[in-house]
């Protein structure tokens, strides 16, 4: 069949000819002298196209896909993403199992001195901290006003591994836990123990212990008031007492702030922050890991 069979240069509707310039057949479509060249689809492409359609139908049969009035088709293997997640979590537990068992069995000090257990405990602790603790203590345990900074070396309830673990387990002033850390500072002003002027004097005095930049010299009157009302818990010269949860007052770390108004407010209103007890909510291994993690942040004693 040669090109001469076709009318050169005159396309008729529905009639195919070869475009003389490009040598490509036309589709026979012509608009005001502009013709459409026929560039046929490669056969392999067409096959792939049909295969994807068949594959797509097969996919909706094998996997859950079609909605029905009461739910949907379940697929051939009843696969769903929830059981997949459950299986993945179970796999993870199996993988972590051996090291978690070691953490559960080892005493806290032992965990910290074993590089493998320390790394694992810090990893588990870090995740548990981010989920449970960071909302109050901050993502890095840096604390906030009224929420203790866990990186520094000042511990209200003690900074040993065992102290930290106990605080996590039983919380602070958490009434539903019998073993919670419960001592509370009295509201000296609100309950009428001290007058406003006395509070002002003792506040000035307390601030001299830490040598805050704007504090005056200690006064005998302030010293007397401190000895009578505060020293039993906070100790002589504000050394503090972790047994009672009485913070040290001489150092540079202030839970609520070191300015006079804040100190006055604390003496007037008393009370203290609350932390939930985590025993029962978190398993023992996680609590141990959390204790090691918090201890390793830097301030642990």
């Amino acid at each position, binding site marked *: 069949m040669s090109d001469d069979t076709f009318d050169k240069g005159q396309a008729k509707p529905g009639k195919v000819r070869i475009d003389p310039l490009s*040598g490509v057949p036309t589709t026979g479509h012509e608009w005001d002298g502009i013709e459409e060249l026929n560039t046929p689809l*490669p056969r392999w492409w067409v096959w792939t196209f049909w295969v994807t359609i068949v594959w797509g139908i097969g996919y909706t049969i094998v996997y859950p896909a079609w909605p029905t009035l009461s739910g949907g088709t379940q697929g051939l293997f009843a696969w769903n993403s929830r059981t997949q997640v459950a299986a993945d979590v179970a796999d993870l537990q199996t993988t972590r199992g051996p090291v978690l068992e070691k953490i559960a069995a080892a005493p806290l000090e032992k965990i910290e001195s074993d590089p493998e257990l320390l790394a694992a405990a810090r990893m588990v602790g870090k995740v548990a901290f981010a989920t449970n603790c960071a909302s109050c203590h901050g993502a890095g345990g840096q604390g906030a006003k009224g929420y203790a900074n866990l*990186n520094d070396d000042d511990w209200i309830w003690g900074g040993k591994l065992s102290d930290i673990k106990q605080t996590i387990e039983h919380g602070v002033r958490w009434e539903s836990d019998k073993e919670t850390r419960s001592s509370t500072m009295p509201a000296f002003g609100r309950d009428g123990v001290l007058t406003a002027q006395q509070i002002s004097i003792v506040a000035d005095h307390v601030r001299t212990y830490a040598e805050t930049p704007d504090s005056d010299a200690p006064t005998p009157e302030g010293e007397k008031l401190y000895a009578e009302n505060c020293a039993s818990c906070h100790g002589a010269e504000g050394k503090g007492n972790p047994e009672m949860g009485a913070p040290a007052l001489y150092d*540079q770390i202030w839970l609520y702030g070191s300015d006079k108004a804040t100190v006055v407010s604390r003496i007037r209103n008393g009370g203290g922050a609350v932390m939930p007890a985590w025993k029962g909510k978190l398993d023992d291994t996680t609590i141990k890991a959390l204790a090691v993690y918090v201890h390793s942040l*830097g301030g642990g004693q």
Partner: protein
Amino acid sequence: MAAIESADASVPSPAKRVGRDRERAFAASRVIIMSSAETHSTLLDESFVEAPHKVYPKKVDGQFRRIKWGIQFATLAIYYFLPFVRWDRGGDAPSQAVLVDFPHRRFYFFFIEIWPQEVYYLTGLLILAALTLFLMNAVAGRIWCGYMCPQTVWTDFFMTTERWIEGDARDRIKLDEGPWTRDKIRKKISKHFVWLLIAWWTGGAWVLYYTDAPTMVWKLATFQKGAFDTYLWIGILTFTTYVFAGVMREKLCLHACPWPRIQAALTDEYALNVTYRYDRGEPRMSLKQAVAVRAAGAPSGDCVDCGQCVAVCPTGVDIRKGSQLGCIQCGLCIDACDGVMDKIHRPTRLIGYDTEMNVKRRQCGEGAIYKPLRARTVLYALLILAIGGFMSATLATRGDMHVSVLHDRNPLAVRLKDGGARNGYTVRFANKKAEPRRFAISVSGVVGAQMEVVGVPPDGKGKVVIEVGPDQTREARVLLSTHGAGGSKGQIPVAFTATDAASGATVEAKDVFIWP
């Protein structure tokens, strides 16, 4: 563009060609698909799907076929047997010469071991590979496609098996057109069976690069239950090898491969291409005609239009239509043509590695120009040397121990009871040797600062020493504290130093101490 111009030599007026580059490129690609009469007529049948087009390349022998055999044997042998080459690294390190160890994040290549943070060496290799491809292209066009591309190597391998089972081109055409006899069924089944075996072996060899090869071969041979991904990868590569080398063949080069398109933009008039020397070949005519025409004193070309160049072409192109997208520059048509020229006692290399420019110059009676040394070849070669040299130098001088420091982000600094400050750092020590090593840590920069490593008490001499296992890293939390008020606000540079207790070698990492 020289390549394309000759492809549509049928276009009459040169003036009309101006500004029609796109159409010409299009026409050049059409030529390949419409190269048989059968295709031609089917296309006119108002069909919008391409007619089936099967190439039956004929067996050929000659210089370039022998080069192709050599490269094919070498590359296939490397691919299939390299994983079995052993390399003793001592200790517990794997003894496989080439191994991609994903579970342990290591890549081994003979004496080189690459850690994940050194993956830029692989990037460097890719850059070198690209430049080498460009250099090959500047020297002799798509020789990569014709000789070394896996698609070509495996397709050639599959064609050889096909020829062995079904016979040469003529027998295969006859077999395909003939009825389904017992013999045809036997041949077809054995061909596809052998193809699948080769494909399976190809997929099997692939997974051997990722695990200890002899162990894996033993496991596969004894049908031990292995990991699902092993079978998945073998399956995927079996499938792709079978389909690409057995079924799609030149269609992959024509429709899927980006290199022919990129190559066209990278080439120039001096790059050698498989070229039909039409100055010598045209007008083509049979031997008998030529005798008559020459006797009459008229010109006659050397091409006798025997079609052998087309018959042997693995992509089914007619090289006499000029350099084109379908041509992979394998030179088999040169071998075929030389064979014919030898027989009819005419000079060989009517088709050869040459340039379109030279053909035109000869037509005008000028001498040919060959310029293997020109700006782009020199530049590519220099770039390859520079990058290769730089990579080798850094590889040769890289250390076998490493320390890196990450300052705590939150909190940046902590105020201590006595008014001092503390910063926390995550320090990672890397030991790239095959034996365990002990690193003593020290820090300098902050006067009077104390260093503490969580979980690692100082030894009797007050030194903090960390043991790092063979070919491993170890992370430590390091705390740096100052005591007493009076530090200045801002940042102080600090340096952490790890000293190898055995050799005394040191590495340093810099960071800052931040005052709260």
